[in-house]
């Protein structure tokens, strides 16, 4: 690994530890979900009903760590911050491993 690459990995690690800003700052500014990413409850409040197809498909997939939060809906701020950071590290590691696997498969000539 070159010195520059080491620096970049270190940079990514720092970014991973800063990720909780991505939940703390929106809360400070009282900002809600992204546009079009409301849960069924929020949508019902916005338009007065839950569209039928949305009701049927919204729960299709049960993600192991929903919303980057390991503590469930009532999780304390600290739990949310810790699990957000951990999610960042897990996610970054997961994409890294996947990319290596893809790379190994498509680059066979070892140039």
């Amino acid at each position, binding site marked *: *690994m070159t010195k*520059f*690459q080491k620096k*970049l*990995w270190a940079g*990514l690690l720092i*970014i991973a530890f*800063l*990720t909780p*800003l*991505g939940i703390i*700052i*929106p809360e400070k*500014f*009282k*900002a*809600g*979900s*992204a*546009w*079009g*990413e409301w849960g*069924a409850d929020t949508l019902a409040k916005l*338009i007065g009903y839950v*569209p*039928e*197809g*949305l*009701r*049927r*498909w*919204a*729960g*299709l*997939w*049960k*993600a*192991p*760590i*929903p*919303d*980057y939060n390991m503590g469930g809906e009532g999780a304390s701020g600290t739990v949310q911050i810790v699990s*957000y950071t951990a999610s*960042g590290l*897990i*996610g*970054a*590691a*997961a*994409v*890294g491993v*996947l*990319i*290596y696997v*893809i*790379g190994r498969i*498509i*680059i066979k000539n*070892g*140039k």
Partner: protein
Amino acid sequence: MHIPDGYLSPQTYVPLYGISIVFWSAALKKMKKELSARNIPYLAMASAFSFLIMMFNVPIPGGTTGHAVGAGIIAILLGPWTAVIAVSVSLMVQAVVFGDGGITALGANCFNMAVVMPFVSYWVFKLVRGNAVGGARLSAAAFLSGYVGLSVSAVFTGIEFGIQPLVAHGPGGRPLYAPYPLSVALPAMALEHMLLFGVVEGVITVLLFKYFMKNDADMVYALTANKDMK
């Protein structure tokens, strides 16, 4: 911009899956031809970077949130085809592990953020840069690359949301999926990205671009003339 499950009708998400699959296979072929083993760490870093940067939700005070995607800077540094794979892998992990973006909508989300965005960003960079080799022109090219790329990506997302009431409604005309019409969804998605999130994306793009120019200018894909693939 991660469309959840239940917001898009099958008439929308199936074709978008198809388009994304075409781009994935084309991208893998291009990478097989052009990429060498020593590029893999950069590819992994690019994907990890895209994953992490999307976690930084930026608030519109009292309103919604949004985030940068990183596809512009990845397209400039590693090329648009490589960016297709780097950002797609990140979106897949977000959907499967963290429920961020739907499984049915994964093709659509990859189309918007991992296909439209890198190519638009790359073209904008090339167009604005012209023949400049440094200076303000190059910085402007990098900023606009991120800014326009994310904004166009948001426009596509807004259109996909907005056509749902037209393509899928119940007997009484009530929408089955995303409920807002194009006249609401498109401006909402476009404006918030043009006014705020796109600016954030542009600033990140130009800062990283300058950092790479200073440290390893030879690796910047968009500046190496001989491997110029669109």
